């Protein structure tokens, strides 16, 4: 008995290490690169571990020229706000389609999902012109509102699917008591929707966080409107693509999302069950 228990633990540890190496390996390599003095990462023969590790690269990317912490802050604001907006709008829409008596439910659902299939390149140019006439270019608003919209199809799909797992009886009971739809949504269903809200929230946050094309076009190169992906791709010097700096930037920017994922991982998986998947 004890023996099989130990084998199990050993095998688990081995499997764990293997998977960790595969999934985290690239990140670990970026970490190692980020502590090499700038320029030495190209030395041939290559040194796997740095001979003189340094934190200089981190100083450079947070320093005057690049200020990646501003970009990280911008990304947090943009993605956070967009996420809240998406959840609100998608939640209301999903509720309307799943639980109320509005007309044209199927058509609305189709319309919402079809929007999610549009390839991003097609929308960039007209969106740019639109944002320009609204005077939003170069501000974070030019990212928040579109990102909010871009997250709606997926979030609606998930939330609507989740509704299938919530017994109608809850709604019925409230309606008999004379509650209005608004009340039913905010007071009764919202708490029950928590798991899917978390997972849809994380997904739309990550979707907004990772957007590059839109963010780059709309930022007009202004540092106050730059998000993380845009900032990191701008690290280079007259000599070469400064991989040590890029590595430092990547490590810094990856931190918030890793924390986010670590905290919400249970909800992420939990919220995906029922409805959309079964």
């Amino acid at each position, binding site marked *: 008995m004890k023996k099989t228990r130990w084998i199990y633990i050993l095998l688990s540890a081995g499997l764990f290490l293997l998977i960790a190496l595969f999934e985290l390996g690239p990140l670990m390599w970026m970490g190692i690169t980020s502590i090499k003095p700038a320029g030495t990462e190209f030395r041939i023969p290559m040194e796997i571990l740095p001979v003189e590790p340094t934190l200089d690269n981190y100083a450079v990317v947070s320093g005057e020229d690049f200020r990646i912490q501003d970009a990280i802050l911008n990304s947090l604001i943009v993605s956070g706000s967009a996420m809240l907006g998406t959840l609100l709008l998608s939640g209301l829409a999903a509720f309307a389609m799943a639980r109320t008596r509005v007309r044209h439910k199927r058509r609305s659902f189709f319309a919402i999902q079809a929007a999610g299939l549009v390839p991003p390149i097609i929308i960039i140019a007209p969106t740019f012109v639109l944002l320009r006439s609204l005077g939003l270019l170069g501000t974070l608003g030019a990212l928040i509102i579109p990102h909010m919209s871009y997250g709606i199809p997926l979030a609606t799909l998930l939330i609507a699917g989740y509704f299938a797992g919530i017994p109608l009886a809850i709604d019925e009971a409230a309606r008999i008591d004379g509650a209005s739809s608004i009340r039913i949504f905010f007071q009764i269903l919202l708490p029950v929707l928590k798991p899917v809200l978390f997972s849809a929230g994380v997904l739309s946050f990550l979707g907004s966080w990772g957007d590059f094309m839109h963010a780059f076009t709309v930022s007009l*190169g202004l540092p106050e409107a730059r998000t993380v992906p845009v900032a990191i791709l701008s690290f280079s010097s007259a000599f070469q693509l400064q991989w040590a700096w890029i590595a430092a930037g990547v490590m810094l920017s990856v931190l918030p999302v890793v924390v986010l994922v670590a905290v919400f991982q249970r909800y992420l998986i939990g919220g995906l069950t029922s409805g959309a998947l079964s």
Partner: protein
Amino acid sequence: MKNNKVMITLLYFVSVLVLFSFSGCSQSESAAADSDSNQDETVTIGYNRFLTQAFGPGEVPFDFIQAQVKATHPNIQVELNIMPDDTAGMRNAIAVWMNGRDGTVDIYGMDTPWVTEFGSAGWAVPLNGELPEAENFVQAGLETFTYDGRLLAIPFWGSVTGLYYRKDLLSEAGFDEPPATIEEMREMISTVREQKPGITPFVWPGGKNEVLVMLFSDFLHAFGGSYLDEKGQYAFNSPEAVEALEFMRSLLEEGLSPEEVKTWNQQEAYRLFVEGQALFAWSNNDLVLWLDDQERSQVAGKWGFAPSPARPEGRRVSITGGFGFAVNPYSDVPEAALKVMNVIAGRETQKNFALAWGPIQYYRGLYKDPEVQQANPKAERINALLPYAISRPPAVRYSQLSSILQQELHSALTGQQSSLVALEAVNRRAEGLQ
């Protein structure tokens, strides 16, 4: 009652979001209002990070421009909008702005191959007669940036390509002059290799980007080919062109160039030379700026720069590049922008570029200036290539031609198709782009 509460919260939330996003807008609006009242105007220059760097004894170009403008036009503020480092990124940004009719950037940097496209698309304000200083420029320099008779930009930096060579290694092997023909180059390589077997003979940027087009243009002429035939059609499929491309492939096959060149951009390509491990390198005169810098380079004092070698029936050429500043037709402050342009075209600013960035300037007589000469002891060497200078292939839609060339040339280099097939494809696909 409770419904109202919820509605109010909703409204509050939405309005917070909306206000937040407009906050940036209102800031710029109020700034504009202020500037109107004080007659202060802001002119924004769009260029990449390099404008904030000086590679020689001159001042940082952007700071210099700012100071000059302040001295001559105290009510104009100059700002820098930092664009992507690579030319493709810069071009994309400019294209988006032009299509959005955006006037955020008033003056932007224009690369030499874009002149025809931008000219035909109307993306730059014609400068003819608007800049008094333009009179002082060498005609050839202005012509590079002229389309259909309209001057589109003022040059501030030029470049030429050529062959870098290790003077010390060559003279050790008994050669005093750089190779003038391809045969000579082969000879030199094999001789030097006997003495130094570990040396990499020839490095060049063979990655799939714009520089590859320049490199091919160079060898095209070296083997006796040309861009157009007598009828004015593209001649990329001529026997000479095929020979040129075959030559490039043979460099790889014979091991004279490492396989990695197929992935290298310009900066990756000259690294081995700077570290002293290559005999020949093909690049533009950017390198000159730090080859003698003891800290960054291993070959200080041991290098030379010359036009690429050619076959006897071909021509030795050097491909020009360079940037000029142009005015955005959608700018809100066109007059102020033109004033700033005149400052940029002025002798002092051009001289500073010569001191800070390099010796190829088109302002008449600048190269005789003692300070410029002192800052650019290599100026002789670089200017010696100017007589060989030619531009890149002509095309109304150059970026499309360049893209086709890059794709086909690179697929031939990587062995996916033969040189003949690739060049035939170029000619076929490029039809109509002249």
